[in-house]
């Protein structure tokens, strides 16, 4: 009993509370680990629960029979089931339990005025910011913030986060994209300079997640259970929820039952929009950019024989004409293509063309990125620091990542990867800076799609609403 008050305890609680971990994820020696088990401060729970007809993975919630498999090891009489659904987080096998903290709960520090950001919010931002703060104070609540690209939604969170810290709450910002996790960390850290913040993603240096504020890629939430008082989900429409139900399961479980869920989106899906219209979901709308200028409206540009040219690796002629007529030739170029294969095919010709058109001086000023590019992080920062003038990319840069002054071209905008949300997001990459608040966005296509028309219509609509505020 005396052990319960030992100075070791709070640290253990901080490290282990609110998580479901495998033995190998708990970085303690056997002596300490066994002690905690014996004192009932750690409770083993079955990692795979079996019912008559199905199995349920206790980490990812997987209950699809075909997503389980059995290991038949000759040293073991019976096979052992494991979950194939969450394998990338370390294998869950029925012979190894998960461990849950059962000791004293940890009290997170209360910070009186933690926000060190001294900027000014616009009127629209301030309204949303106040809503977020109110919802955080209200238990068991959820709010959707619909804020157009470039409205400065991160800043709208600061007041709410400050309030949460004042209450001694624990906060998680989750996003599906690792690039966004990396970009958010320094910004949030700067805004709350005295509060410990960690970033968790697939190969982050930090693995444990013991800080009061955590910025995480979605999959990382699979290790948490009732850990956070506030979860802010960035880009809710981009969440691969429809592909992987376990992510929705994980976000719900990571929140304390009394917690607040804040959803952020620039491009809500039709279903979410209908719910908002019917006032079924609490939401706040931010239709204007932080610098007050309207969103750039995309221009559609028809290209004949587009696909024929692309197969040969040639950029469309209309693109070349546009290059010559760009209003501001100083702006960097962000060029989107639908597939990796096409990106690679067109890269060298594009480089030659841009040199020939005097857009760049040499092939060192252009580069291309895609999802599995190992140098992707580096290329993005080179582009941001203007050491690259042209970046050719697949849809991985469609959202989250911000560059101050770019013109945006989508080549083959009619391709099915460019749905309405993707097109609105891509258009939103232009005109982000107050110094250069406009930017050109061109859809090069060989036949207007519904997605393209709807994207343009929705951008115009937001500009219209924004003007009235």
């Amino acid at each position: 009993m005396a052990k319960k008050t030992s100075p070791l305890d709070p640290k253990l609680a901080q490290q282990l509370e609110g998580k479901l971990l495998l033995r190998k994820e708990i970085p303690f020696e056997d002596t300490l680990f066994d002690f905690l088990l014996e004192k009932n401060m750690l409770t083993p729970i079955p990692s795979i629960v079996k019912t008559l007809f199905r199995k349920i993975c206790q980490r990812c919630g997987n209950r699809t029979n075909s997503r389980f498999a059995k290991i038949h090891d000759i040293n073991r009489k019976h096979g052992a089931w494991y979950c194939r659904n969450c394998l990338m987080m370390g294998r869950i096998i029925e012979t190894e339990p998960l461990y849950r903290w059962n000791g004293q709960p940890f009290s997170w520090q209360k910070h009186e005025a933690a926000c060190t950001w001294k900027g000014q919010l616009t009127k629209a931002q301030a309204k949303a910011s106040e809503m977020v703060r109110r919802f955080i104070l209200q238990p068991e609540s959820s709010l959707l913030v619909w804020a157009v690209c470039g409205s400065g939604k991160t800043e709208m969170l600061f007041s709410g986060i400050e309030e949460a810290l004042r209450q001694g709450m624990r906060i998680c910002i989750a996003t599906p994209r690792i690039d966004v996790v990396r970009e958010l960390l320094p910004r949030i850290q700067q805004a709350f300079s005295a509060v410990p913040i960690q970033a968790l993603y697939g190969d982050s240096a930090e693995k444990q997640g013991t800080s009061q504020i955590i910025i995480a890629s979605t999959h990382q939430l699979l290790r948490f259970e009732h850990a956070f008082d506030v979860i802010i989900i960035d880009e809710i429409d981009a969440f691969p929820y429809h592909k992987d139900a376990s992510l929705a399961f994980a976000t719900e479980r990571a929140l304390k039952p009394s917690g607040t869920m804040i959803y952020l989106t620039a491009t809500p899906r039709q279903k979410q929009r209908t719910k908002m219209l019917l006032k079924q979901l609490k939401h706040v709308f931010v239709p204007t950019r932080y610098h007050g200028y309207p969103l750039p409206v995309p221009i559609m540009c028809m290209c004949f024989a587009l696909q024929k040219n692309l197969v040969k690796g040639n950029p469309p002629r209309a693109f070349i004409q546009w290059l010559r007529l760009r209003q501001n030739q100083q702006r960097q170029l962000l060029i989107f293509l639908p597939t990796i294969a096409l990106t690679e095919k067109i890269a060298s010709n594009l480089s030659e063309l841009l040199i020939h058109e005097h857009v760049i001086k040499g092939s060192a000023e252009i580069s291309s990125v895609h999802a599995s590019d190992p140098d992707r992080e580096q290329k993005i920062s080179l582009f941001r620091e203007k050491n690259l003038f042209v970046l050719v990319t697949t849809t991985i840069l469609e959202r989250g990542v911000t560059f101050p002054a770019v013109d945006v071209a989508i080549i083959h905008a009619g391709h099915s990867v460019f749905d309405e949300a993707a097109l609105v997001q891509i258009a939103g990459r232009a005109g982000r800076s107050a110094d250069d608040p406009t930017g050109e966005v061109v859809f090069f296509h060989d036949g207007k799609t519904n997605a393209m028309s709807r994207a343009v219509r929705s951008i115009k609509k937001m500009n219209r609403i924004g003007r009235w505020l």
Partner: protein
Amino acid sequence: MKCLFCQSKITSEVTWRTLFYPTPMSICKLCNHSLTVISGARCSRCSRRSDVPKCIDCLQWEQFPARDTLRYNYSIYQYNECMQEIITKWKYRGDYELGYIFKNAFHTHFQKMMLTAAKTHLAIPIPLSVERQVERGFNQAEMLAQFLPIPKAPYLQRVTSEKQATKTRSERMGSANPFQLRKPINKPIILVDDIYTTGTTLRHAAKVLIEHGCPEVISFTLIRS
């Protein structure tokens, strides 16, 4: 059916052969296409693609008859990026199920290429150390051996741990023998493993066997890297 590796749906194409003799597919066409079966001229001793009957490495082994204990190795696949991905997930992440990708190929290539040996030889999978076996929950070589239609003789054991990946070739070739035999065997042996890299591990195992009176040791491996 879904592809064991990429989860996409397998649509088996209908030909007369699939109609009359449907073989269940474990991976999709695209994944299967990304795996390279070794074809054409190969080194007669190690299965590496080679225009000469014996490759340089094998000639080098022949300089040291005392260590060159393996008569020959037969491998099915060449190592490539896709194979590396599958192996990583299968062995290191522990996705046991992925081993079934190779079930058909391992069986049929064995029937075709090891026809005579199949009648006389016993199979021994290369063992893992106890710690490694516990950590992974299974031994990939054992899984492969189970696909073969011949009796197994799992009498080999590993006494020191495997840290091959960090060693250089010369370090590996000169290192101490990690294997022991629990029971002498007087029958010829086919060693089974997932990958033939330098051939050192297999030769260590073969050496122990031969020292205990085994007349011949050959090996059948999934990959020649």
